[in-house]
């Protein structure tokens, strides 16, 4: 079976059914960047518990379905507009950013492109440089083209290498500049608002596989946690070579984020016994990296009996 990485998904919002379906479709690893929750936070403890969840419970929960979970820590652009709260979150970030499995500072960048957003974006770029970390950029939904250019300008101004920055939520209008300037270009297959996968097929035909990454950004909105495997299938049906599909749906994400030293293929192919003990202990079905087969999961789902 082909295996995939979904390098941008908000798994805290997804159900166990989603995890089962993702694993059955071949997703072996995911990256969960810190973001807002739809409902705005009103105090710093909400951020702390959320960060703890990303490095704790969600990681464990994913492992129970045979999926390796990584995360990015950061203050999202939308909530950077509450100055007092944002300052408090800046103090929390050093408590989380150096933990195991934290692959980048992210997702950070612009929403309204306000002055406060710019200030906290810059502060976090400095933290990334200081701790030698990668950055995952959230490009704005409105004013996207200008916001994308400015995000990359800031990264350069703050001394970050383009090869250590993943610019996400690209589209036909932004991709050329991102690739030309040497950054990674990620595309979010999110129905209605971001990319559709037929457009994605055309983009890969035009630009080839280098430094292009596909993700779902599935969250609490109407989104699709199977976006990566579905797009891979569509690409295959529309004649894109197997190696190209593997690059944009697995290899490139691995290459980009493994620069952190916190994510490597062996984590899911030949897991370390200590990691196994921490993530799988007590679960006899999954211990030793075994995962339930697609047939097992399907049978369980169809059955009327709940044991």
């Amino acid at each position, binding site marked *: 079976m082909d295996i995939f990485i979904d390098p941008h998904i908000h798994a805290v919002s997804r159900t166990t059914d989603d995890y089962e379906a993702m694993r059955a479709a071949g997703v072996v690893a995911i990256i969960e960047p810190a973001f807002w929750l739809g409902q705005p936070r009103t105090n710093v403890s909400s951020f*702390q518990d959320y*960060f*703890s969840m990303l*490095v*704790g*419970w969600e*990681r*464990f929960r994913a492992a129970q379905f045979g999926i390796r979970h990584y995360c990015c820590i950061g203050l999202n652009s939308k909530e950077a507009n509450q100055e007092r709260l944002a300052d408090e979150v800046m103090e929390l970030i*050093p*408590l*989380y950013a*150096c*933990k*195991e*499995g934290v692959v980048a500072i992210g997702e950070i960048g612009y929403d309204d492109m306000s002055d406060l957003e710019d200030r906290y974006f810059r502060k976090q770029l400095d933290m990334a440089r200081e701790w030698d970390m990668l950055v995952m950029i959230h490009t704005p939904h409105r004013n996207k083209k200008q916001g994308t250019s400015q995000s990359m300008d800031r990264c350069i101004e703050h001394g970050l290498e383009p090869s250590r920055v993943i610019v996400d939520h690209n589209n036909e209008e932004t991709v050329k500049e991102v690739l030309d300037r040497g950054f990674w270009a990620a595309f979010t297959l999110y129905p209605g608002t971001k990319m559709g996968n037929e457009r994605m097929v055309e983009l890969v035909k035009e630009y080839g596989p280098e430094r292009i990454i596909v993700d779902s950004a599935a969250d609490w909105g109407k989104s699709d946690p199977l976006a990566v495997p579905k797009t891979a299938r569509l690409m295959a049906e529309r004649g894109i070579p197997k190696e190209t599909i593997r690059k944009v749906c697995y290899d490139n994400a691995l290459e980009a984020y493994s620069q952190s*030293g916190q994510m490597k293929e062996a984590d899911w192919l030949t897991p*370390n*016994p*200590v*990691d196994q*003990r*921490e*993530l799988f*202990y*007590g*679960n*006899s079905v999954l211990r030793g990296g075994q995962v339930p087969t697609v047939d097992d999961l399907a049978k369980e789902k169809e059955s009327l009996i709940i044991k």
Partner: protein
Amino acid sequence: MTTPTSVDQQAVCALLRDWINPFLNDKARNWVDEKGQAIKNGSEEWVFFTSFSAVPRYTGKAELNLDARALEAADALRPGWKAGHWSVDQAARAMMALSVPSGDEAAYFATMTKVFNAADIGESVALYQCLPLFPHPEGFIERAQEGLRSNLTSVFQAVAQRNPFPMEYFGENAFNQMVLKSCFVNSSLHDIMGLDQRTNATLAHMLVDYAHERWAASRVVTPELWRPVGPFLGGDYMDDIERVLNDQDPAHQEAAALALSMSSHTEAVKLLNTRQDLKEKIDNNLLTWA
């Protein structure tokens, strides 16, 4: 409850250092030493937090695989300290945590509360494994019980298993809840230290109720459940233990016989005598809870 002796944290750190050194290159060794020293000298909290997090980046996560001599040295420094399952990063994290100055008790617990509250899975396991080694142990009782509320099995087990802290510091209710939850989350009772000394009539009652629930739901009851019940067999629970003794699974029969052998009540003795085969094995030490 037994009274634990006070722990020499410096001597523990020196022993930990001996254990991890063969696994480290020069860069990692210097980094661990430098950070440990800085923390000990009262550096800003951030140094401790970021170093504690970054440990595996320098040390890797190999299993220590300690030999008998190392385990004896551990037990000599802190009776009951079990480190046979520790890994290099856990030992290095223990060194950092045990280097935090503890003279000002309020400041010490303020720092420790922050590091516990922000801990990820691996950090939590490392911290809870250190419970028997920390200064001011009484101040960690609530924290230890918080660890047992975790649904992360590895965190739960870092407190419950191969750790003398619960038997030494927990009151009866907390100890009982730990044993019951172990059954509930399929965590072996074998590695709970002091189980035979700390079992009590309330625990036996809770466990037998739990067994009834499991049977009602047609779920298996772990044979180990009967160990803490054993001393209270006779008068109470005789129908239950007879059912286990007649189970089709030999492991359950053996557990019932072992539990019966822990009671001197005449009914228990009488029932065990109906299974001379198992009784003989127990008398000759061929059948034990180990």
